[in-house]
C-alpha cells in the first residue's frame, strides 16, 4: 500500500471523526440559513409605519406628497403650530413632522427651507425614502410650474431604459445577468480565498503539531519527508472537499425543505404589497415578478457547469499550491507559534493581493490587472473565479483560461518542490529561530 495514502487516510480520519468537524460542517449552513430566515422574517414583519405630519403653510404640496399609499412612510397633512406638534411627537402620535414655512416657494427664491423634526433618530432607509419622495414631489411641482403638462411629464417618466446593452456578438445583456455574474464571481472568489486560509493554516498547524510532539522523526524513519507532507496535504484537502460536498447537499436540501416547512413565510412575502384598487400596489406587484423573472433569466444565462468545474479546479489547484507553502512554514516553526506568524506574512501577501485584484476583476473582467491576476498562479485561483463568472468569452477567453490552469499546475509543482526541500530540513531542526533567508538556503541547497 502506498505510504502517502496511509498518511492521508490518517489525516482524513482523525479530522473527520472529531466532534468539531461534525459541528462546523452541519452547524455552519444551518446557522447561515437561520440567519437568513430571521432577516426575511423581520423584513416581512416589521411594518410599523413611520408617520409624518406635514404642516404645509405655503401650500406647496396641495394636500398630498404623491400617489403612493402602501409604503412604510405615511404623510398626513395637519394644520397645527410647531409647539403642539412637538408635544405630539413626545406623545408618539407622530414619529416626525415636516414643516413647510409660509415663505417657502418652489422656485427656490426664498430663504426659508423645509424643516424636518423627529423624536428619535430616523433610520437611514426611512430617511432616504422621505427624502426621495419629497424631493421628487417638489421636482414635479417645479416642472409643472414651468408649463409642462401632466401628460408630458408622464411620458417623460415613461421613457426609461431605452439603452440596450449588448456585446459585439450581438447577444443582448440583461442587466440582472451582469449583476448575477458579479455576485457569483465575488462569492466564489471569496470562498476560494477563505478556503486557502482555513485549510492552509490547518496544514500548517498539523505540521507544527507533528514537530512539537516530536513524532516527526519517528515517522520520517519509515516514510520519506515528502510522502509525509503530501499525505497530510491530500488528507486535509479531502476533508475540505467532503466538507464542501456536505455543505452543497445541505444547502440544496434546506432550500427545498424551507418552503415546505414554513409556507406562511413565503406567502407573507408575496401577499404583502397586494392591496387591490391602488395604483402603487399594481406597480409594485408588477415590479416584483419582473425582478424575479430577470433574476431567473440572469441565473439561466450563467454557465453553471463551467463555474462549478472551474471552482473545483481552482479550489484544489490553489489549495495544493499554497498548502505545501504552509507546510514549509510549519516545519520551520518551533514551540512558539509566534515564529510561524512572522514567516507566514510573505505567504499571506499574494492571497490578499488576490482578493484585492478580484474585487476589480468582478467589475472589469478584461482589465489588465484582472488578466494578470488571473494568469499569475499565486493569485489566479481567486481572480479567475471572478472572470469565469462572466462566462466565456465575455469574461475570459478559452485560451486565457487554459493558460491560467496550465500556469497553476506548473505553480503547484514549483511550490511543492521548493516547499518539500524546506520541509525536509525544517522538520528535523529544533530550537532555532529560522528566518526567510535560511528557508531560502534550505530550498536551494543540493540534494
Amino acid at each position, binding site marked *: 500500500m502506498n505510504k502517502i495514502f496511509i498518511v492521508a487516510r490518517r489525516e482524513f480520519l482523525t479530522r473527520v471523526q472529531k466532534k468539531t468537524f461534525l459541528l462546523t460542517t452541519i452547524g455552519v449552513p444551518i446557522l447561515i440559513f437561520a440567519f437568513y430566515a430571521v432577516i426575511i422574517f423581520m423584513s416581512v414583519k416589521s411594518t410599523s409605519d413611520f408617520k409624518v405630519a406635514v404642516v404645509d403653510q405655503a401650500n406647496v404640496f396641495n394636500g398630498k406628497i404623491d400617489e403612493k399609499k402602501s409604503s412604510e412612510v405615511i404623510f398626513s397633512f395637519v394644520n397645527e403650530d410647531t409647539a403642539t406638534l412637538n408635544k405630539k411627537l413626545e406623545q408618539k402620535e407622530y414619529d416626525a413632522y415636516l414643516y413647510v414655512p409660509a415663505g417657502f416657494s418652489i422656485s427656490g427664491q426664498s430663504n426659508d427651507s423645509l424643516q424636518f423634526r423627529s423624536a428619535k433618530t430616523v433610520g437611514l432607509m426611512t430617511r432616504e425614502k422621505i427624502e426621495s419622495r419629497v424631493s421628487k414631489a417638489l421636482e414635479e411641482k417645479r416642472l409643472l410650474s414651468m408649463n409642462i403638462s401632466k401628460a408630458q411629464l408622464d411620458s417623460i417618466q415613461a421613457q426609461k431604459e431605452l439603452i440596450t446593452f449588448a456585446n459585439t456578438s450581438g447577444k443582448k445583456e440583461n442587466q440582472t445577468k451582469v449583476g448575477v455574474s458579479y455576485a457569483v464571481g465575488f462569492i466564489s472568489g471569496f470562498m476560494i480565498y477563505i478556503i486557502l486560509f482555513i485549510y492552509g493554516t490547518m496544514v500548517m498547524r498539523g505540521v507544527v503539531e507533528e514537530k512539537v510532539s516530536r513524532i516527526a522523526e519517528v515517522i520520517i524513519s*519509515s516514510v520519506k519527508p515528502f510522502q509525509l507532507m503530501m499525505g497530510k496535504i491530500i488528507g486535509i484537502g479531502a476533508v475540505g472537499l467532503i466538507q464542501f460536498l456536505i455543505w452543497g447537499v445541505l444547502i440544496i436540501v434546506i432550500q427545498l425543505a424551507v418552503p415546505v416547512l414554513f409556507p406562511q413565510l413565503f406567502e407573507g412575502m408575496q401577499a404583502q404589497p397586494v392591496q387591490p384598487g391602488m395604483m402603487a400596489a399594481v406597480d409594485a406587484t408588477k415590479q416584483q415578478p419582473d425582478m424575479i423573472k430577470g433574476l431567473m433569466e440572469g441565473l439561466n444565462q450563467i454557465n453553471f457547469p463551467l463555474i462549478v468545474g472551474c471552482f473545483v479546479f481552482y479550489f484544489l489547484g490553489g489549495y495544493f499550491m499554497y498548502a505545501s507553502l504552509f507546510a514549509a512554514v510549519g516545519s520551520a516553526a518551533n514551540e512558539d507559534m509566534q515564529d510561524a506568524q512572522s514567516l507566514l506574512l510573505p505567504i499571506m501577501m499574494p492571497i490578499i493581493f488576490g482578493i484585492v485584484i478580484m474585487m476589480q476583476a468582478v467589475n472589469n473582467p478584461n482589465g489588465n490587472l484582472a488578466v494578470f491576476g488571473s494568469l499569475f498562479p499565486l493569485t489566479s485561483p481567486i481572480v479567475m473565479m471572478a472572470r469565469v463568472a462572466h462566462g466565456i468569452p465575455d469574461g475570459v477567453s478559452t485560451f486565457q483560461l487554459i493558460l491560467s490552469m496550465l500556469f497553476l499546475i506548473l505553480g503547484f509543482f514549483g511550490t511543492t518542490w521548493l516547499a518539500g526541500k524546506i520541509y525536509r530540513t525544517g522538520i528535523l531542526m529544533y530550537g532555532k529561530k529560522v528566518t526567510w533567508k535560511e528557508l531560502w538556503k534550505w530550498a536551494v541547497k543540493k540534494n
Partner: protein
Amino acid sequence: MSKILELEALRKYYATQKAVDDISFSIEKGSIFGLLGPNGAGKTTLLRMITGIFYPDMGQITFDGKPFDPLNDIRMIGYMPEERGLYKKMKIGEQALYLAQLKGLSKAEAMEKIKYWFKKLEMETWWNKKVEDLSKGMSQKLQFVTTVLHEPKLIILDEPFSGLDPLNANLIKDEIFGLAQRGSTVIFSTHRMEQVEEICDHIVLVNLGKKVLDGSVAEIKQKFKENQFKIRLQEKPANINSDAFSVLQDHSNDLVVKIHEGFRSNDVLMHFLQQGTTIESFHEILPSLNEIFIRIVEGSSALTRSFQKVD
C-alpha cells in the same frame, strides 16, 4: 559471524561543521552495539544516515551484505530517535497500527504483532486510551513497542532508558537481550556508560565527528588499563617500596600500586611474600568506561567545534 552493517569512510558536512568526518566501522549480526559520544559528537547525524533520513555526502553503507537502499531496507530497521513522540490525541492501539502500517505491514499482520507485544508488556488494557493520558514511562514503553513491532533486523535505540523507572528499564533491557538472542542486531546510543558496560558487546566512541575508539568492552578496558592493582594485606610490612612498582594509595592495609614498565604482577606478590605478609586479596583495577570516556573527550568541547571551518 557475518556483518549486518558496514560503514565505510562516511562523511556528512553541514555548512558550519563536519558532523561526521570519515567514520568507518562494522556491526556483527545479533550483537548489541554501543554508539557513544558526547553531545554534538555527530551520533544523531550518523544514525540518521543509517536510517536513510540523510544521505551521506561521501562514503558507503552496506546493509546485510548489499549496498544500503533506504526505500526498501527501511522496513528492516526500527529506529527510536532521541527526539521522539507520539500523536497525543490518537488512541494507542490505532497509533501502533498506523506506525506498523507505515513500516509496510498489512493490517492483519500488524494487529497480530501488536496483540503479542501488548500482552507481553502488559499493555492490553491501554488500547483505547490516548497518549496524553499516559505517563512518560508508559509512553516510552509504547514507543519501544512501535519500534520493534515489525521485527526489524536492525534496531536503533537512542537513549532508550531516559524517563524510565528501574523496573521498566529492566523490562526493556530484558527485551533488548531477547531481541538480540533471536537474531536482531541492536545499536544502542547513549552517554550513560554504566548501561553500556552492562549491555553492549562492542562499542564505538565518536568525538568531533571522528571515530576515536572501536572494540569490545573488555578489549578497550585492557587497552586503557594503567597496570594498577589493589592489594589487601593482613598487616603492613615495614618496607612497602620496591623497584617493581610505586604505591599510589596507602590506606591502612589496602594499597594501590602501579607496576612499572618491564615488571609483572607476580613481582608485586613476590615482594610481599618474601616479607612473610599474608595477602588477603589481589586484583587488577580496570578503568571504567566512564573514566575512559572522560579521559578521551575532555578538553574537546562541542562549543569549539561549532566554529570549526569546513574546507
